[in-house]
Structure formats: structure tokens, C-alpha cells
């Protein structure tokens, strides 16, 4: 597959952000900050890093992506639609009765999803199970990407999995933490301090890579570096801006768990379409 240019990838990330705003406004509920902040990471994964075939979601040579913080699934749905798993029109069914695009991801509803999540802290454990099974079947050349929130790492289950991955040296697991420093009740460091975050993962036996999670090229490079580490599981600490791309949402934890209303969505879309006022919007 031919590599896409960085310029093209940035355009895709911007389109994904527009879709997230439209989906959330239409749904009338859902999470805004996390999905917007993750758009660059998902663009890197779906449009450069991962091996998959949208026409054969069960292809047995595909890489696996587990979204552990299921509330951020709008960014995955938008990415999957752009990648050709389903028609973009379906994005507007998010959270509606009968939709395949459940408020939190349900594997059995939508081909291409690898897990059901929402209750936090389980993605890494599932990745461990998958990696162990792959090892038994001599399939460890396949990569397992786990996107995790930072707030979700309050969950003890995460650290149970961290120990297991180290014990069995599951080096085909590449975890990516969306380190945006917010959770529902406020900044992570006031709700439940996670720092020294990188040192924690290293103490658990993981190789860590720190990266600007809103820099697509840097995320792609980090994933490439991660693949070169063969003796340890890898945690990419991706620093992101919550609400990235929409000025009035950025850094504001109150946008963690709510959607924009009509006026806010209009304002957000204008900002995304004009790249923050740098260019003239197409509808003006």
C-alpha cells in the first residue's frame, strides 16, 4: 500500500474531527474532548501504521486495535468510515436505536471492532490474552495496538495486565496512552495523581516512548520505534490536547463527557474548516 503524504494525513485528521462534531451534535450526547484529542493518533493508526483490510475485517493476518477507553469510540467510528469499513452516512446513526454504532463500542454489532468496551481498564488484559494466544500459534508477527485513556489507569485491572505483559514479555503489544490530563471529575492529577506516569510503566517492566500525540508524524515514528523493541511490551505516552482543534474545548475538562449543542457545533465546524481562521471556509 502506498504511503499517504503528511499533508493528506493532516487533512484526514481534520475531516475526522469534523465528523466527530457532527456525530455528537446529532446524537445529543457523548464525549467530545477525548475523541478530538485522539484524531491524530487514530489517523496515524488507520492510515499509516496498521495492517488491515476493511473488506475483510476478519483477515487473519490483520493487526489488532483495541480501544480500551470505549467512550472515545466516535473517533474510531469516524476513522473506520473514512477507511472504508462502512459508508460515512452511517456515522449520523451514532447512539440511535438499532444502530451498529453504539454509544460505547460493541464488537458483535460492527465488523471491524475487536472488542466491547466502556467499563474501563480491560483493553490491556484482552491484548495480553490475544498476544499469548498468538504466541501459542506462532503468530507473534501481528501487532496489537491498545489505545488507553489516562484516567482509566486508576483501574487496578490495568496494572494486573501490566504485570502479566512484563512476565511473558509480550513485545507485540504496543499500548498508547492518551495522556490528556483530564477525566470526568477534573484534572487527573487532582482526581488521582498518575505521575510519575512514565516511571510507573518502566517500573512495571515496560519500554516507554514519549511523544506529542497531536503530531501525526511523531506518532507514526513512535510506532515504528516500538516495533524495534523486541524484549519488552511498549507503552507510548502520547501527550495530547483534550478537545484539540476546537478552541473553546481545548484543555477544558468539562468537555470530557458532553456533546456540543447546535451553535457550539457550528462554531467548532467553522474553526475546523478554516483551520482556526487561517483559511477561508468553504461555505462562506
Amino acid at each position, binding site marked *: 500500500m502506498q504511503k499517504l503524504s503528511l499533508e493528506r494525513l493532516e487533512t484526514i485528521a481534520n475531516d475526522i474531527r469534523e465528523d466527530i462534531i457532527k456525530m455528537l451534535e446529532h446524537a445529543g450526547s457523548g464525549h467530545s474532548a477525548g475523541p478530538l484529542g485522539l484524531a491524530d493518533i487514530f489517523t496515524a493508526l488507520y492510515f499509516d501504521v496498521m495492517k488491515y483490510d476493511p473488506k475483510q475485517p476478519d483477515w487473519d493476518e490483520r493487526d489488532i486495535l483495541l480501544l480500551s477507553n470505549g467512550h472515545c469510540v466516535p473517533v474510531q467510528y469516524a476513522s473506520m468510515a473514512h477507511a472504508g469499513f462502512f459508508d460515512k452516512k452511517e456515522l449520523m446513526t451514532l447512539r440511535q436505536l438499532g444502530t451498529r454504532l453504539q454509544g460505547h463500542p*460493541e*464488537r*458483535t454489532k460492527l465488523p471491524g471492532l*475487536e*472488542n*466491547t*468496551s*466502556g*467499563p474501563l*481498564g*480491560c483493553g490491556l*488484559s*484482552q*491484548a*495480553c*490474552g*490475544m*498476544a*499469548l*494466544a*498468538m504466541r*501459542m*500459534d506462532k*503468530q507473534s508477527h501481528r501487532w496489537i495496538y491498545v489505545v488507553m485513556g489516562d484516567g482509566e489507569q486508576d483501574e*487496578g*485491572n490495568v496494572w*494486573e*495486565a501490566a*504485570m*502479566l505483559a512484563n*512476565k*511473558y514479555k509480550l513485545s507485540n503489544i504496543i499500548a498508547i496512552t492518551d495522556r490528556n490530563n483530564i477525566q470526568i471529575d477534573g484534572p487527573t492529577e487532582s482526581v488521582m495523581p498518575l505521575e510519575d506516569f512514565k516511571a510507573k510503566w518502566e517500573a512495571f517492566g515496560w519500554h516507554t516512548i514519549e511523544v506529542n500525540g497531536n503530531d501525526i508524524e511523531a506518532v507514526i515514528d513512535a510506532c515504528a520505534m516500538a516495533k524495534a523493541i523486541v524484549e519488552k511490551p511498549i507503552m507510548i505516552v502520547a501527550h495530547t490536547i483534550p478537545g484539540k482543534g476546537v478552541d473553546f474545548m481545548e484543555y477544558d475538562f468539562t468537555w470530557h463527557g458532553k456533546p456540543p449543542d447546535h451553535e457550539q457545533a457550528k462554531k467548532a465546524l467553522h474553526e475546523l474548516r478554516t483551520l482556526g481562521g487561517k483559511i477561508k471556509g468553504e461555505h462562506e
Partner: protein
Amino acid sequence: MSDMHLADLDSELANEPIRKGFGKGLLEAGKRDVNVVAACADLTDSTQMSLFKAEFPDRFIEIGVAEQNLVTVGSGMSAMGKIPFVSSYAAFSPGRNWEQIRTTICLNDRPVKVVGSHAGVSVGPDGATHQMLEDIALMRGLPNMVVIAPCDSVEAEKATLATATDKRPCYLRLAREATPIITTDKTPFEIGKAYVLAKGADVTLIATGTMTYQALLAAEKLFKDGIEAEVVHVPTIKPLDQETILKSVRKTGAVVTAEEGQINGGLGGAIAELLAENHPTRLKRVGMQDRFGESGSPDQLLEHFGLDAKHIRLAAHAVLDKN
């Protein structure tokens, strides 16, 4: 009943813990299918996974004392086509990890086999913390989940093999103490079937797990009291074999349930629901009466909490006493 091919209950019965049958069944399942794998939370000997581990060390994962991870790793292995059996004490799994079982196994439709050993008060001196009594209720409430409580080690072996080829998530409930082996290799076992082990027309005794033997003993005593009890063994609590149960109850018109667990939400709860909707019937439920256990020897505890043939017999008299 001859077609059930039971052991001769009047002879000296062999005793073996139900969990031993699981250990043998898992080993056999592993031999039959290379995709059968096992994981345990630091209780490999106790749960009898050690037989499988010795034979297939590369297909066994030691998780450590981490039950949330145990079942969620099972979900991941299942996603890659494995048939994972994950075991611990029932108090911890499904006691501690119910939400992970709900989300990553049942809702996610991954046919993991959750094995809870040391269920019931017959765990004995370890006390209430380790005597799991709510597991049937916890697992029965989950869509997609199959719930099985074998009555002896021979049936446990068959149940283990049956779950290995079943495409649904399953919960297998095992007990610690040696209990009489009442079934034989020829006794039928199928997931979702209840079995009439003794015929009678006056009262139906519906039992599961270790209490099935006690129900058979109670039926013998009731016979001497002039009461013909029908004993229905329900190894699969979910899905419940409604047809077999209702057929017996329509005949007898009186029911006693028996289980080594909480009657609320347990087998007693399941039968009460079935009867209330389909055939309202006089009912007494033998089991834990909304309380916790405590330390003691297994025999002392079973008597203390009324979980034996004597109390099933009393319950049968009570349910037949129309005053």
C-alpha cells in the same frame, strides 16, 4: 431409575471431590482439541488445573492473584480462537470480576469457560469469606451465560467436556470436599437437560450440585414416611430445562428445591420464577436463607445451615402440610 444408570445407592459409594472430575475432564478436553487452553489465579492445584498444566505447559498461563485479569485475558485468548478455561475459587471468580465477565465475555460474546471451585459452605474452616454462595445468582443474571453445577466428580468430567465444545460462555461451579459419586459413565449428561433420578407422585425434589445426593437420601427417608418423592437433578441451572421440571411438578403439585447456595437468585429463585409464571405450586426452598456462612467442619456446617437430607425431608413434609 435404571435408564439413568446411577451407582447403587445402597452400596458403599466412592467419594471424590467434584473438582477432581473437572481436572480430569480438562486434561481430556486438552487432548481432544489443541485450542483448549487454561489460566489460573494462583490456585492451580486447588482447582485441579495442575493435571492440564503438567501435560500442556505451553497452553497454561499462570495469572497470579488477579481475578479481573484472569477472565479478561480469557476473553482475549478466546478472540484468537482459543477455548479458555479460567479458574479460581468461586468467591474470587466470579466473586470479584463480575463486570469483566459481563462486558468482555457475555456482551462481547466470547465463549470463555469460567470455573469457580470451592463453592458452598462445605469449604469449611476457611469461613464465610471463602464460602461462595451468591455465584449462581451472579452468573444466572447474565445474558448468554450457561450455568452448570455438577452433582459429583463423574458428572463434572462430562460437564467439562461438554462446555469445551459449547459455543457459549459457561460457568462451572465446583465443590472442594469429597462427596459420594452417584452417577456412572453411562449416566446421561447434556447441557440444558434436567434428569429425573427417582420417580414419585407426591412431591418433586429439585436439586443441583452437592445437594442432589442429599435429595436422593431424603427421597428414601420420605418413602419410609409414606411419601413418594420424585427427584429431579438440575445440573444446568441456566438454561433451565423447563419442560422436564414442569412435567414433574404438574404431576406432584408440590416442590422442594435444594442447593448449597443462596436461595435468593439461586436454583430456588429460578424455580420460583418458573413456577410463578407457568404453574403456581406450593414451594419450599432449602439452601442458604439470606445469610453468610462461618468456620466449622463441612459436616457441621451443612447441618447447621440446614443443607442436608434431613432438612429436605422436613421441607417436603412442610410443603405437603396443607394447613
